[in-house]
């Protein structure tokens, strides 16, 4: 079996922080350590644990996972970092036996996010919960209500909210520079090959009676929970909530209606859609805008995951992966030299081009002049990101818990994207246009 791994690169040199103040690990280390618990220490849990350790300023006092293989491994891993964490299978026991916790990170399958988050909030803890919030709107709303009722912080794991690259696009390129002028269309794509099932080392299998206690029929269903509608709204929801939230913030609006189509046929053993294309309609001040959203689970090709904003003066393609991020200037747009000088953009080194075709245009006094045929010019975004995407979002959460600043993604920010995406699934099932906020 073969696989090619790709190294993504950023050619841009380091730039200043522009309008974006950055927190450093040193800030966190100077602060009193926060006592944290982690619920769910699978693949994403590992990413978050390493992000927290790299940030510093935390004591991970407890880890909880229903799979002993995972919880034991996490406890052992943390010992290397001088973190004496207790391992638990049940989050209720973790809450009861670790009374000094101040916050909890939830990185479990989607269908238990709401129950666990609400319980932790009600126990007086702040919560960072992975996205999507929940497979149903009622469950997501229950999380928001619990945060509101308890006054505790709930950070939803839309990590792009804390990404310097995304913040740069939103605050500097769109709001400050109006770089691409009127945004008239948008699209998102998330191509991530998910061809094979996740297995498990046979000697680490859990007993079926134990699995059923947690809501799974067997190990296959537990390991591949995202394929099953009772555990998740599927890969489409997992990807699209992030991307619709990006569009919501860049457009300053939420979509009003959605039309969607999807298939479940490619993977006959999976309940959730494997391919989805949705069209969201955004009401803007003076017009409506259609945004397409495509999620494919059979390929990782053709520019991976990104969001594209199309304006009258250019287009901005944003991605967590810098290799897919780029900015394109329309030939008719005013020059962007000012934004290059201000380090809002990076102009690639000039390439030797073939001789241009010529055409006729009018100069300022109406005389016909010969000019080069215009070409779309491509620019890069400056390299602003120095940590993993999750580190920025975790750092924002920890700072807010310490009383410094506010959350970048409280539930009231996430709920519109969660609603839009779950309505898209309804639209697919009903095969009709669905109103998002009824």
């Amino acid at each position: 079996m073969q696989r090619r791994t790709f190294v993504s690169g950023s050619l841009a040199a380091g730039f200043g922080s522009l309008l974006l103040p950055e927190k450093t690990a040193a800030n966190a280390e100077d602060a009193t350590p926060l006592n944290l618990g982690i619920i769910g220490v699978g693949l994403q849990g590992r990413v978050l644990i390493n992000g927290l350790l790299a940030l510093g300023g935390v004591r991970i006092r407890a880890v909880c996972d229903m799979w002993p293989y995972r919880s034991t491994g996490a406890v052992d891993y943390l010992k290397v970092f001088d973190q004496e964490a207790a391992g638990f299978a049940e989050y209720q026991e973790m809450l009861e036996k670790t009374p000094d916790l101040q916050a909890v990170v939830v990185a479990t399958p989607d269908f238990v996010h709401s129950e666990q988050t609400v319980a932790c909030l009600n126990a007086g803890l702040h919560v960072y919960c992975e996205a999507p919030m929940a497979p149903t709107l009622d469950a997501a709303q229950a999380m928001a209500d619990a945060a509101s009722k308890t006054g505790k912080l709930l950070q939803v794991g839309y990590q792009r909210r804390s990404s310097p690259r995304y913040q740069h696009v939103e605050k500097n390129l769109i709001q400050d520079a109006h770089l691409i002028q009127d945004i008239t269309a948008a699209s998102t794509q998330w191509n991530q090959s998910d061809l094979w099932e996740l297995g498990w080392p046979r000697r680490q299998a859990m007993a079926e009676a134990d699995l059923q206690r947690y809501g799974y029929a067997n190990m296959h269903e537990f390991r591949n929970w995202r394929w099953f509608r009772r555990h998740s709204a599927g890969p489409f929801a997992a990807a699209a909530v992030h991307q619709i939230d990006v569009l919501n913030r860049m457009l300053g609006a939420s979509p009003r209606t959605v039309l969607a189509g999807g298939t479940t046929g490619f993977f006959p053993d999976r309940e959730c859609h494997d391919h989805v294309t949705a069209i969201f309609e955004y009401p803007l001040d003076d017009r409506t805008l259609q945004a397409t959203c495509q999620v494919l689970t059979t390929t990782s090709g053709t520019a991976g995951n990104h969001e594209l904003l199309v304006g009258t003066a250019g287009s901005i393609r944003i991605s967590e992966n810098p290799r897919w991020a780029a900015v394109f200037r329309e030939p008719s747009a005013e020059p962007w030299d000012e934004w290059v000088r201000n380090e809002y953009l990076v102009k690639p080194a000039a390439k030797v081009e073939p001789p241009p075709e010529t055409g006729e245009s009018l100069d300022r006094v109406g005389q016909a002049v010969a000019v080069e045929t215009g070409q779309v010019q491509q620019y890069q975004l400056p390299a602003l990101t120095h940590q993993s995407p999750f580190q920025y979002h975790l750092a924002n959460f920890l700072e807010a818990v310490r009383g410094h600043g506010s959350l970048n993604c409280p539930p009231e920010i996430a709920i519109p994207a969660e609603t839009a995406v779950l309505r898209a699934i309804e639209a697919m099932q009903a095969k009709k246009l669905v109103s998002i906020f009824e």
Partner: protein
Amino acid sequence: MATTFTIRVAHPDAREVRCAVEAAFAELDWLETQLSRFVEGSDVWRINRLRQGETAVVSLPTFRCLDQALQVQRQTAGAFDITYASTPGSNPARRLGLTPTGCKVQKLAEGVQIDLGGIGKGFALDCMASVLHEWDMTSARLSASTSTHLALDAPPNQRGWPVGFGPEPQRVALRREALAASGVGVKGQHIVDPRSRQPAHHLRAWARAPRGALADALSTAFLVMTHSERERYCRHWHVEGAIQDAPTRNHHPG
């Protein structure tokens, strides 16, 4: 790592193999996010952006890879050096400080840059092999491109996994050991002796060692070490090496 990784497993259950191999590749994906100097926010990315005196906490795999790299650097008296691209002037042996508790990496000099390109592939194979062991896949060969191979137990009724070694090439049966090759014959001159900043002495070098990371690093070191340095190293550390010089094809078993 911009390289094709291949895993061959001798096991009767194809579905089980598929899941185990997917888990090993997932580990590779994870390592890539930590070890690549090109991935924004990776451990290596963060280390390269530290200032002198600053410390980064890295993941355990990254720490182990750095630790092994610095061990080989010491053992080869600097012929292998992951900090070769640093600003000249600082002592290569005093560029990074590692603290095992907490997996802390301190930058000891300004302008230090690390590049795990000479050891990362072999280290990744070691980590992927650990995953296969967890899955009780004990008979396997893991390869990074055609240059680095790590063998676990031999296939049934075989002495080992056949791999070419040395300039002739000699066919060896690899079992519970690794073999790596480095050279400037295919990619051109891209390796310099970190000690002298001169181009590699040899056209190709091979190393056969107990672990992938060690074989990978040694194949790079052997490319710039003199014959006597390599022979001394191989005798002392009980590994095997071979060299091909340009333009004549001389084989010097280590």
